């Protein structure tokens, strides 16, 4: 190989980074698990945001890095890739951004190539295609502390000579050596190494050849691979033990589940009360105009508030997922769950999102990002809303208390079970038809165990809250206003209709018109209105029914239970429960599916499928139950 100085093929002229005039863009590239995000967080802190490239589901993060003298550069964190061969969507995005083919983003001015120094021979393979792009590149060898701790070594100056690019030995998690990255960004590293590669880069993108090139580059730079990670081996002996492994797995699952439900409950109740008090005591008194007060307090604050109260639960869930993922346990959990998930045509990585969906489908769908296989990911997204989310509980509680008070636990358990069965049978259906894929696609790298850092967990939570609240401020706000308007028109003496007269409103009229369609399910027009308002969020139906019947609209309200018993048959009540178990009565879920799948195709299909499923099941339930109970 190119050990020659004057050999023309070996020459790659890398211009010094020209960071002077306009804002520069620097791309961060690296294989998965190389610490890209950690470095990105280190560089940008809170000055970052998540964005999607239009038309693709791959998301990237943009951030600003402050340099000396009020200068700034933009950094883009690209998806983790092993090569630049544009095969998967992630790789295509990375490839397109680096070659300037991504329309929304100008070609980067420089590249930070981040590699795991404890696994350098394998990670260096990516250096070949990245360096041959000819952009100014800093090769960052991350996890330097780990490398030294486990007795490995590398001569970074020599490696820089071999590659013809500056090399920095860094520990992004501890912040060691990050100053070299800032120096590079400030454009002060021009003089350091010779801008000429001593090794010829492999021209053909053949993996064994690139791998041999990487080994040779590493050994020329005195690379000694570190000893195997002792602690990881020790911990795997416990976490992947044939007996204790599954036991710990089940305990972790129960622990997460329990904390999400019980742990978040007091905070959620407190938030609910706070929103209620804020609306009734303060905001209501501040607004003189009746119509405006009704819109703000009854429409916006109630609608948006009923969704915002889920924020503590969602954050707690993401805190757990963050800890599990950053520590490396998530990969082990996926391994243990894989066999079971394979029976439904899914794979181990679908497990955590589906578990999360018992709290709320929205974070669950966001959590499917860890599934690389696109078909498996879409299948998981499509079945997640069948899992019994916490928003269904108020509805279930009200109806079970009113109609099936003798067997509350059995009824509730039954509803959880039918939701689960619908999910797995839908998964099987999808995976044997539209989302068919070869079963051999499960390949999962087991990262070494690491301590999660407060910094990355914190930034993750900030990130998720922003996404969630932005949606609450846009889609859900819009729906809440529309529902309020439909429920308050036409005006009565120039004022919006009071809540007691909802049947006279536009929505009430629509309810009457729609009644023939829902009559076969055993529902009357009042339930019809409830179904419509519950599109904003499932539990809204409880409040709506309270309003219509002129009772206190909570699931514990005895008056409301009494009113429902007189107005609904047991068949109709059972049908309503079944309808709620299966229907996709949730705007937020529709919005997040659209965002995550990059279009309206999947959410539209999902909404249609779940609604038809719910309708048919409710119809059958009404008729079967009516045969036995009168």
């Amino acid at each position: 190989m190119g050990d020659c100085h004057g050999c023309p093929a070996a020459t790659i002229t890398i211009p010094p980074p020209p960071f002077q005039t306009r804002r520069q863009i620097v791309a961060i590239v690296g294989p998965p698990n190389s610490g890209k995000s950690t470095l990105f967080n280190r560089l940008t802190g809170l000055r970052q945001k998540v964005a999607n490239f239009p038309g693709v589901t791959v998301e990237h993060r943009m951030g600003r890095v402050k340099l000396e003298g009020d200068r700034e550069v933009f950094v883009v964190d690209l998806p983790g890739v092993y090569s630049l061969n544009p095969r998967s969507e992630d790789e295509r995005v990375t490839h397109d951004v680096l070659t300037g083919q991504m329309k929304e983003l100008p070609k980067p001015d420089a590249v930070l190539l981040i590699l795991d120094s404890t696994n350098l021979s394998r990670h260096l393979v990516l250096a070949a295609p990245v360096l041959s792009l000819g952009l100014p590149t800093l090769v960052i060898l991350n996890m330097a502390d780990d490398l030294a701790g486990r007795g490995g070594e590398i001569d970074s100056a020599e490696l820089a000579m071999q590659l013809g690019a500056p090399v920095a030995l860094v520990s992004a998690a501890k912040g060691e050596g990050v100053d070299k990255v800032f120096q590079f960004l400030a454009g002060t590293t021009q003089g350091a190494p010779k801008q000429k590669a001593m090794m010829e880069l492999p021209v053909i993108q053949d993996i064994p050849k690139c791998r041999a090139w990487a080994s040779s580059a590493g050994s020329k730079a005195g690379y000694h691979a570190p000893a195997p990670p002792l602690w990881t081996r020790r911990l795997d002996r416990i976490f992947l033990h044939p007996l204790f492994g599954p036991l710990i797995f089940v305990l972790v699952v129960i622990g997460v589940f329990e904390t999400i439900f019980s742990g978040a409950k007091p905070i959620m109740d407190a938030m609910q009360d706070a929103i209620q008090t804020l609306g009734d005591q303060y905001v209501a008194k501040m607004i003189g105009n009746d119509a405006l007060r009704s819109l703000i307090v009854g429409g916006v604050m109630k609608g948006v508030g009923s969704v915002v109260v889920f924020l503590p639960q969602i954050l707690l869930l993401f805190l757990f997922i963050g800890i599990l993922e950053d520590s490396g346990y998530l990969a082990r959990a996926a391994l243990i769950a894989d066999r079971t998930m394979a029976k439904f045509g899914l794979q181990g990585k679908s497990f955590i999102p589906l578990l999360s969906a018992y709290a709320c489908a929205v974070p669950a769908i966001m959590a499917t990002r860890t599934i690389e296989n696109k078909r498996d990911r879409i299948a998981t997204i499509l079945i997640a809303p069948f899992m019994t989310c916490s928003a269904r509980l108020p509805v279930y509680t009200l109806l079970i208390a009113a109609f099936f008070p003798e067997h509350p636990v059995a009824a509730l358990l039954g509803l959880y079970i039918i939701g689960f069965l619908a999910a797995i049978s839908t998964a099987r259906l999808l995976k044997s038809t539209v989302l068919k894929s070869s079963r051999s696609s499960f390949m999962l790298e087991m990262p070494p165990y690491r301590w999660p850092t407060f910094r990355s967990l914190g930034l993750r939570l900030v990130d998720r809250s922003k996404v969630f609240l932005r949606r609450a401020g846009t889609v859900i706000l819009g729906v809440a206003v529309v529902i309020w308007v439909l429920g308050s028109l036409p005006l009565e003496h120039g004022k919006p209709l009071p809540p007691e007269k909802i049947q006279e409103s536009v929505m009430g009229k629509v309810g009457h018109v729609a009644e023939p369609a829902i009559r076969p399910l055993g529902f009357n027009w009042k339930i019809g209105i409830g179904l419509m308002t519950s599109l904003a969020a499932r539990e809204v139906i409880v409040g709506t029914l309270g309003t219509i019947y002129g009772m206190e609209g909570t699931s514990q309200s005895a008056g409301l239970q009494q009113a429902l018993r007189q107005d609904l048959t047991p068949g109709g009540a059972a049908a309503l429960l079944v309808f709620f178990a299966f229907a996709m009565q949730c705007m937020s879920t529709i919005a997040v599916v659209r965002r995550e799948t990059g279009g309206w195709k999947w959410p539209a299909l999902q909404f249609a499928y779940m609604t038809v499923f719910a309708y048919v099941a409710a119809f059958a339930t009404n008729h079967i139950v009516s045969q036995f109970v009168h």
Partner: protein
Amino acid sequence: MTWKANYWTLGIELQMSFKKRAARISDKTKRVARNLTELKRGESGILDRLDLPEDDARRLMELGFIPGHAVIPAHSAPGGDPRVFRVDGSEVALRRETAMRLLLR
């Protein structure tokens, strides 16, 4: 209707003879090349080739399953599937059906 039945039996015969042939071939490869699932836990083997569609093979090679490199089976999920393999400085879990297509020298 007899011609239809004839075609049908012919089809079955063809299929059966094809199956026999396929079985013979797989017997032969079995004798010649061992695959990853035949390694005992902790026993090292040298990878020879990846008998998989190109996409899967590429992805596995990127993860370290490169012909000529050593592979060592390690822990597994309960029941032995999927299993973690130590390869080229990292640990990668594969399902049994994938591991069976990775042939050893």
